[in-house]
């Protein structure tokens, strides 16, 4: 057992590809049994961080320990206890789902018959039984992803790295993956998940680290991050976008804070510190004859957290570098 209670510890990790500095000193801690979401736009350095932690890439400087083992000096010990599911499903297109799992089980040291038993068990657990004898190239995105995760947990790892596990999946498949991740957490596995989806981090993580351009720009629980931005946000959507300037003025006066104009031409939002004034905002708007189709007060979304931290919405950031390297 390692001396610390952390499953993953990263100190001042740096990595450059040629002249491009991808990681500029990343610090991370993930508690045992916890799920940390590493959040950031394309090119922020998420994949590079995960590949270093999974021993597929070596850092230029800094240290990274997984379960107390250094990822460079004790790569084999790390490899024995972790599993990685990459951004591009690491399964063989020209084999069936069943054959993929049997092959990986064999490479882990299972006998032929044990490999077959374990593969069958996972195929059933991951709802792939009907497709088990079909070639993977005919699988849907969600099925591939599930097969990929199944291949990663043939031996249930102590730490699982999930690199953008739901990118490109439809909502239903995304929920299935989330359920798998939750069950895995319940079984005691520590998970480090990278994602561009704020909702995903919100759904699964107990801790979030936001990175941008190779540095950590925020680190905390979801609650902490949201509180740091403001106690709540009023979202208003107008019937007629032409009313927006008038509505903006009324909201600014009533709430006493700056109003944010959303990209939707009929929508506005404002972060409020005093929720009592929210009700008067609605009545003031209707007194001014402005029709409102949507009016809500809620916790700030992670999108708003990102906006507050970087001054840019998460989706609009330019990709700094090629992530896969």
């Amino acid at each position, binding site marked *: 057992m390692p001396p610390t209670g952390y499953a993953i510890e990263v100190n001042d990790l740096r990595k450059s590809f040629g002249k491009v500095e991808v990681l500029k000193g990343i610090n991370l801690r993930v508690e045992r049994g916890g799920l940390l979401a590493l959040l950031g736009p394309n090119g922020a350095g998420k994949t590079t961080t995960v590949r270093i932690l999974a021993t*597929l890439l070596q850092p230029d400087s800094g240290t990274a320990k997984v379960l107390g083992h250094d990822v460079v000096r004790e790569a084999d010990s790390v490899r024995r206890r972790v599993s990685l599911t990459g951004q591009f499903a*690491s399964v*063989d297109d020209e084999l069936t789902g069943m054959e993929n799992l049997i092959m990986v089980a064999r490479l*882990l040291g299972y006998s032929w018959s044990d490999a077959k038993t374990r593969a069958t068990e*996972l195929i*059933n657990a991951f709802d792939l039984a009907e497709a088990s004898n079909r070639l993977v190239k005919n699988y849907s995105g969600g099925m591939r992803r599930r097969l990929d995760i199944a291949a990663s947990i043939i*031996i249930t790892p102590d730490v699982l790295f999930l690199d953008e596990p739901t990118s490109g999946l439809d909502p239903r498949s995304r*929920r299935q993956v989330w*359920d798998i991740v939750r069950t895995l957490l319940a079984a005691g596995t520590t998970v480090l998940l990278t994602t561009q989806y704020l909702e995903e981090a919100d759904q699964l993580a107990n801790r979030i680290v936001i990175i941008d351009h190779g540095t950590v720009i925020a680190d905390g629980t979801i609650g902490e991050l949201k509180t740091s931005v403001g106690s709540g946000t009023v979202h208003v959507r107008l019937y007629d976008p032409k009313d927006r300037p008038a509505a903006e003025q009324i909201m600014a006066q009533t709430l006493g804070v700056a109003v944010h104009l959303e990209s939707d031409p009929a929508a506005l939002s404002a972060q409020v510190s005093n929720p009592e004034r929210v009700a008067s905002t609605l009545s003031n708007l209707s007194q001014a004859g402005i029709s409102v189709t949507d009016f809500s007060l809620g916790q700030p979304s992670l999108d708003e957290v990102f906006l507050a931290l970087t001054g840019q919405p998460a989706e609009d950031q330019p990709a700094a570098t090629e992530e896969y390297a």
Partner: protein
Amino acid sequence: MTTPQTTLTRPVDDATLRKAFSVRERPARPSALSASLALAWRALLKIKHVPFQLFDVTMFPIMMTVMFTFLFGGAIAGSVGEYVQFLIPGILVMTVSMISMYTALGINTDISKGIFDRFRSLPFWRPAVLVGALLGDSVRYTLASFVVITLGLILGFRPGGGIMGVALALVILLLFAFSLSWIWTLIGLLMKTPESVMMVSSMASFPLTFASNVFVDPTTMPSWLQAVVSVNPITLAASAVRGLMHGTVTSGDIAGVLIACAVLVGVFAPLTMYVYRNKNAH
């Protein structure tokens, strides 16, 4: 197919899933042999699922044999019947050498698809990925050899070494293809795209196969070319295969091909493994 409208919930019931997540015990690391065999099994499954990929190992040798026999037969050896005796063993070596290039393509494709990362993150004997692929390929070589020899027999090829000679020649041929493959695996690891793999491999293989004694006896060549031809591994392989098939083999022929194999493996296997281990690691 009907999709339920509202129940967007779990893939299966919790208990099955939780049970599936409870295997923490790790079996002993697979031996080098069983890891290699598992990957050879993978290569064979691919042939089983996509038999069309055997097209090249059947059509290519048929094309080559027929084309060269009738194109050069009369001019080079005076008659087709005589040329076939000389050409068939050479064509065998050439065919198998050309087919071995596909090993590079397969490895390159694996890298770009991500399955390579999976292999690298599993704790098995590293060279097994390459050894397994090469073992799987031997099926293709055997099939191609069978096609060439059958066609040769139809065209009048009469090996003086008999069945035993032919069988020994095939063993040497497989050994040679396995050794030569290490060049292609290195190229497969170094190149960025399958297209560049094909380009570089073809560039390397054409001079290798033509500047040899596969098609013609080198005695008519200028001396500088003879010097090149005589150390070309393809020449050494073709001489041994030819000798074994016709029962005229010398110990020098055998030693030549064995040394060529040893040099190929000795140089390219460590280089390949070095590149493989460090791929993307820095």
